[in-house]
């Protein structure tokens, strides 16, 4: 906890889908310049919690504070207004459009409503090259692209605009080694610019090496929130699997 007011604070978020309880009193906080790893087994509720913060879903109960104030996030535009950008696990791309169109979707560059296609193309090419991704033609519809290529577009989009908070839901799942490495570098870079990052990942190495804190969920409930380095990698794995916190003085 390096600063007094958290960028994001999610308090007692519950969410049910019909009869299914996906989240129960889930809590999470994030400070500027911090990378928080969000961990848990498949179906633990990680994506659901992130979607609630992103405005893609609404919580059944609980509240969200941004910079200490209660925030009313009803839809994705509300979240954006708070500077929240999201890389969705399902990527959220329009397969019928090309990479620049997807990158600028909803925020097209324009002059009096007329698209500045050339500019968007150029910026998109630049943004994608930062991730070292090989895309043969920027005119190709996204649905024709490989899994990794698509994921890169989704990542580029989230970091291209000035975000304060970035949600990354398994951003490197489809990426090659080199491409993953670039994303991890990118995360460090964003962190240095004071951006807060929520990072969902199943890759314990990356999480251990590159997050400041971790939050572990199990069956929709918090298991533990702690500074990453207060535990060993094995202890974290054991908490993810068992769903019970490892007792330790240092735990927050």
């Amino acid at each position, binding site marked *: 906890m390096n600063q007094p007011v958290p960028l994001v604070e999610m308090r007692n978020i519950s969410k049910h889908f019909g009869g299914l309880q996906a989240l129960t009193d889930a809590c999470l906080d994030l400070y500027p310049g911090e990378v928080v790893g969000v961990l848990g087994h498949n179906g633990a509720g990680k994506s659901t919690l992130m979607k609630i913060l992103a405005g893609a879903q609404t919580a059944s109960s609980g509240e969200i504070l941004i910079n200490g104030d209660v925030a009313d996030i009803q839809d994705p535009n509300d979240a954006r207004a708070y500077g929240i950008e*999201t890389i969705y696990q399902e990527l959220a*791309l329009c*397969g019928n459009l090309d990479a620049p*169109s997807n990158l600028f979707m*909803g*925020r097209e560059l324009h002059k009096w409503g007329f*698209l500045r296609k050339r500019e968007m193309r150029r910026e998109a090419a630049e943004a994608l090259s930062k991730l070292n991704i090989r895309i043969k033609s920027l005119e190709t519809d996204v649905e024709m692209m490989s899994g990794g290529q698509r994921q890169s577009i989704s990542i580029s989009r989230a970091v291209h605009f000035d975000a304060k908070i970035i949600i990354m839901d398994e951003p490197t799942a489809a990426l090659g080694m080199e491409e993953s490495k670039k994303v991890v570098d990118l995360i460090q870079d964003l962190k240095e610019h004071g951006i807060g990052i929520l990072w969902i990942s199943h890759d314990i190495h990356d999480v251990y090496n590159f997050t400041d804190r971790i939050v572990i969920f199990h069956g929709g409930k918090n298991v533990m929130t702690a500074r990453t380095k207060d535990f060993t990698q094995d202890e974290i794995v054991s908490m993810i699997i068992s769903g019970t916190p490892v007792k330790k003085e240092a735990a927050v």
Partner: protein
Amino acid sequence: MTMFEKIRTYPLTWIVVVALVLAFALTMASPYFLTSGNINNLLKQVSIVAILAAGQSMVIITGGIDLSVGSVLALSAVTIGWLIQADVHPLIATFCGLAMGTLCGFINGFIITRGRIAPFIVTLGMLGIARGMALVITGGVSYQILEPLFLTIGNSKFLGLPIPIYFVIVTYFVIHIVMHYRVFGQHIYAIGGEERVARLQGIKVDREKLKVYTISGFLAALAAVVMVGRLAATPPSVAQGIELQAIAAVIIGGISFTGGRGLVLTALVGALIMAMITNGLNILGISSFWQQVLIGVVIIAAVWLDNLKSAARQ
């Protein structure tokens, strides 16, 4: 991509080829087909469906449908007729007619987006409502419109071409610009591609859809202006079932119900193909029974021919 590649894969190319094949066949079959008189006819005959098809294709690209265009056209037409026979200035009457159509389109869009009701249902409802209103306003009577403004639209030429075709040209020019050069058009393609994603990326989906249905209503009213010119009258029963023709023009052109894809200009060619089929069979003097059979066959054949492009592209 080479220039040739580009032309070959441009969505318009093949459907234009199909249209040319059809035109060639009809020219061979009848000496009347390729006369200037008949070409003029064709241009007049295609105009109304073509204008409707422009709006319809925008709607279909969003993944929706507008069944109400024929009725909205009729309501706009009788609005104009009713005002003119009440001695309102024809320009004002025309303006009110356009406003009426636009309003109907707006209501469609409003109910679809606010009520989250399927476009099919809402516009089917409007099909009944607008037609009923047209009858209520007129009591079933058709007004004669002998205003020079409309007679000019219906019967005059400009630079050798009938006036209605200029309505078509302007419509397609504007819609083409909107769809391919404006942010709005970009949003329409995104919505049609994946509405959920468009929403997640901050596109105001409801507002954009509202606009699309409003434009479709406006274009139905614009088609009404041409219709009034052509008929010099405003029968409330006009343009029954024309929605099916407009939709068919769009689909023949190659825009699919799936949404998110397609070039609006192809709908114009689709409308032209439909008009040529009817006109050609009329000219050949085919009996109306067999005409229906042949129209069916030729529509399928035209689309089949158009599909060969995918084979050719391999």
